[in-house]
């Protein structure tokens, strides 16, 4: 990994995007060697609803500026977040959208083709059933963030940033109740598989 590797997970309050990034940070800080990490978040006064974004910066060197400049990876769970955050993706990076809440993919036309305009985003774009997997396959929408984290975990593995096992360790460390940890691991694995079996648009 060269330089900074920046990740943003965005959605609405209550979707757990902050915890998801916190776990990436914990995995990097506690279970990976020689990886510097800063995690941060921005939020409004609402505990539920409203826009919510959380970010992680990873690097082999000490990190100065703690916020994201141009994320290599974004996981976006709502339409307003997609509209606001997709454009600053690092060229050649990856964006993972939730297919339930993000219905209009930035940079793509209504018919699904690439827009031939300045709106085009130079990134590999994936549209995955993150919320639907949590809700329908696992039966708990509350684990949406762990499905999202699983997808992110696969990307971080492909980009040789960190091992998905570090993330699994962070999950087990974070959820002290074993049953809850198991549920979250299951959701993580579903998300990981979702990305592994996906293709970009």
């Amino acid at each position: 990994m060269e330089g900074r590797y920046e990740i943003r997970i965005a959605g609405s309050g209550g979707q757990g995007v902050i915890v998801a990034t916190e776990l990436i940070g914990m995995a990097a800080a506690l279970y990976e060697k020689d990886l510097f990490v800063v995690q941060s978040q921005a939020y409004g006064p609402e505990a539920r609803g409203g826009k919510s974004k959380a970010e992680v910066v990873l690097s082999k060197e000490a990190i100065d500026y703690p916020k994201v400049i141009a994320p290599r990876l974004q996981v976006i769970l709502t339409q307003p977040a997609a509209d606001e955050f997709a454009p600053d993706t690092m060229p050649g990076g990856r964006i993972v959208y939730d297919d339930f809440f993000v219905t209009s993919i930035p940079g793509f036309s209504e018919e699904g083709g690439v827009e031939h305009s300045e709106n085009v985003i130079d990134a590999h774009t994936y549209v995955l059933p993150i919320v639907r997997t949590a809700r329908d396959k696992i039966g708990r929408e509350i684990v949406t963030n762990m499905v999202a984290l699983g997808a992110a975990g696969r990307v971080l593995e492909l980009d040789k940033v960190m091992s998905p096992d570090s993330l699994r360790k962070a999950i087990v460390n974070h959820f002290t109740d074993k049953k809850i940890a198991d549920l979250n691991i299951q959701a993580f694995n579903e998300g990981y598989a979702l990305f592994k079996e996906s293709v970009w648009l």
Partner: protein
Amino acid sequence: MAEINRVAFMQGNEALAHGAIAAGCRFYGGYPITPSTEVAEIMAYELPKFGGKFIQMEDEIAGMAAVIGASIAGAKTITATSGPGFSLKQENLGLAYEAEIPVVVVDVMRGGPSTGLPTKVAQQDVMQARWGSHGDHGTIAYVPSSVQECYDLAIEAFNMSEKFRQPVLIMSDEVVGHMREKVTLYKPENLIERAKPSVPPDKFVPYLADTKTQVPEMAAFGDGYRWHVTGLTHNDWGFPTNNPKEIEKKMLRLMSKVNECRDEIVKFETFHMEDAEIVVVAYGSVGRSALRAVRDARKVGIKAGFFRPITIWPFPDKELESMIKQGVSILVPEVNCGQMVNEVERAVHGKAKVTLQSLVNGELFKPSEIFARIKEGC
């Protein structure tokens, strides 16, 4: 007892709370306020594990009063707040300066004035830290810029507070308080404790200061020494006075006990100052944006340097001046309308052109914004 030594991944506010406990803090009194609340929450959970006490008071004023009270009873104490709460703390902070009671006060700065921006970063309180409570006094205030520094400076703040018998401030900010980083928690060595009376109770003159340190010894209520604490200007016996000689002696000592030790209090960090033609002076979270911008400038061949005050009070003025060559340009990015910039101007005595870069939109500077000004020559 809970384990102190460990590596953790946590927020600046959390690290600050753990640092306080490691420094021997055993009392927290306060009132919840964003973005400082995590400090209170961690203290509420952790302190009783160490036999310490946490109390949520009815307001910010009472929170400040309670920590001063507990300190008089012998505890190392801390309270944390933010903008509006810091304003409310000023009244009793003044009492702690006047009565020389050690206590650590944290202000996690957010945008103001008034309720302002509870969840957004600012550095608008650094002058309030210096001049907020009415009347003169020496000020010690730290501005951390990382989670590790929150931990380290919490310990340092307690040491200085105990040493000089006065409030010490930690002026954190929303970004530093809420971001998470890896932090090494450790048991500090050589903690400084307030000087206890060296004479028996019948010989104890509570505000008779040591001539060298200028700091009086302090007995805890309950340990056999009876003394009087007052917010009124008082003589060596701690009793109110209107005697001009006694008033002046007290006032001058309050100032000089800190001022004469400023060299050992002042802390700062530099990067590539040796040949710098453009110097960026920045602190707190802005220091991180600035360091990035300076690194980027060096990459394109600009001789940029970086100076970061870690104590904003006392301000590292001598140190900055000694590193500045005649004619350099100094850029001072602050997330306020210009506060520390005046100190920088004062420090360099006209040797450099000082330019403020102000940002007051609730966001942290992007490195590119500072870089652009460096490239333009400020």
